[in-house]
């Protein structure tokens, strides 16, 4: 049995691993259950599971693989409940198919975030405002359409174009990395 002195650094290291992988984990959950505003809750539940099972994780091994596997099991086990709440959840075979192959490290996600910020800087202010409205407020696109005297259909089309442009820009910035997670 480990002494307290031995256990303490292990817990510290585990928490460090857990926190540093939160971005990747949340992104993965969002990809398996798209548009789910409760993705944070799922993440929290997975965090608890990981914490409860921390003794079975060997420090120094691949934390991300272990965490992602736990997420997959969580989604598989809770699929029915999630769907009953109206959430979109990919079928089991697609969940397995979307399992990260070439896994991206947290630093990689960080790099994409920095790239996004750079790409956003290249947009027109009114396009940034539109993205800000879409992602920073709970207000509907219709409300913004009225405020900006444009149709919501036009705004939706602009958003599609903006995302497509941002995706390309980010890929260019990060050097065309293929791996997603």
């Amino acid at each position, binding site marked *: 049995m480990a002494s307290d002195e031995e256990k303490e650094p292990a817990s510290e290291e585990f928490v460090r691993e857990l926190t540093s992988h939160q971005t990747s984990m949340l992104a993965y959950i969002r*990809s398996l259950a798209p548009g789910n505003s409760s993705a*944070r809750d799922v993440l929290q539940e997975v965090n608890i599971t990981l914490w409860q099972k921390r003794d079975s994780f060997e420090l120094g091994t691949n934390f991300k693989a272990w965490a992602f596997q736990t997420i997959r099991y969580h989604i598989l086990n809770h699929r029915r409940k999630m769907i009953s709440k109206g959430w*979109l959840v990919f079928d089991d075979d697609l969940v397995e198919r979307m399992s990260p192959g070439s896994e991206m490290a947290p630093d990689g996600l960080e790099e994409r975030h920095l790239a996004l910020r750079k790409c956003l*800087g290249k947009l027109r202010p009114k396009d940034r405002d539109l993205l800000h409205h879409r*992602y*920073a407020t709970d207000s509907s696109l219709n409300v913004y359409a009225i405020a900006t005297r444009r149709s919501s259909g036009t705004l939706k089309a602009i958003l599609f174009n903006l*995302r497509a442009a941002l995706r390309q820009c980010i890929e260019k910035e990060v050097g065309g990395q293929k791996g*997603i997670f």
Partner: protein
Amino acid sequence: MNRQDHILAQRVAEGDVSRKEFDAFQERMRKEPELVGIYQAYSLLEHTLCEEFEGMPLSRTDSIAPTWSSWAVAGSFAAAAAVALLAAVLWMRPEPVAPVVSIPSRMEFSEDAVWAFKGRKNQVDGMWAVQNGGTLELKQGRVKISLATGATGLVEGPASLRVDAPRKVFLAEGRGFFRLERKGAELVVETPSLRAVDLGTAFVVSANRDKPDELHVIEGKVRLEVGGRASGKDLVAGDGASVDSGMRVERFAALENGFPETLGDFTTVLGGELKAEDWRVAKGSPEVKYGVMSGTDFEAFRKVPELANLGSNAVVLATVEVMVPEEGSFHSANWSGMSFFKDGEEVLFFGDSYGDEETWSLDLKQDEPVVFPETLLPGARKVTMRYNVRTGLVTLHEGGLPLAAPFCGGWLKAGQGFDEIRLGAAYGAGIAVKAAEVRIKP
């Protein structure tokens, strides 16, 4: 893949499709592997956009002003925190922005911290893993925040802050020392007036209700942005700047030290069983029996050299527990209690002050009137005085730690030192001190 496929992949990533459309999309994904890749790319973009935009800063008016009356609530949460797991604590008014990103940061609090966190939190080995987007209201004490990206912040109360994302802290009010703990980490600290983008360094940010927000660069380089502009000025070690609500920037030399970098543990400089030999009796004949010092019309002094040169961020706690005295009365027209002296001059007293009010009270001398509580607090009890050396704030709290709402408060000059304390009671008054303890946090 054509444009329509890209649009469809975006709509799925947003969750903006019907169940029927989603099922049809899944069928196509099984047959068209390329569609899986496009979907994953847009899903990741959706996630990154959420991270970037959600949890935008609150305005100054959205911050929550600490009030004495909210201490009791905060204190009860601090106590409940010891046993709560995954408790959603809602005590402040609703947040105007509901951030989505749920990447926990870790928070550790000093022993004297009084705080409340609005949002989800888990206790992990004495630390709290808190959900980003939650709001921390730190009434007093210190908190160490460890962000997932490898940056840390040491924030002093009173402060109000929110960790918006793994790399972003919004400091609505208060002062924090921030540092990158590893190479490649990233940190942005925002206040209502400025945005500090860490470029590999250590720096201090303060957000102030009644004066301009400030940035002090201690090491390395920081980019200062104001007015929401992405471009900014790079400040290097030794540079400081303030930004007022009108976005006016004033440069000055940074304060290089005086900022706490650790939570700080309290060290007991006076405590344990009361013994007669530890005290110099200057007046009267107090009795020390079974660890209780009691008597009437006496003054007993004890040197405490550790109190003479207190650090600029030090906090002093003095706890006195009194019993009902066999001789005289704790409450009288005269005084009985504990005093702090400097160079032979009494600087601070708490206990029963001069006057007819039968209550614990605070006397900060300086020819100022005694501070009485709104609701009288009489009799035998344990009371803790807390003095914040940096701000000069002195508060009295019931109990052995200053976690309950203060029942008295006032201001001593900042940086005040002491060299001696006194236990005693004046003529006609009596006191029985069961325990006296003085602790210092550097």
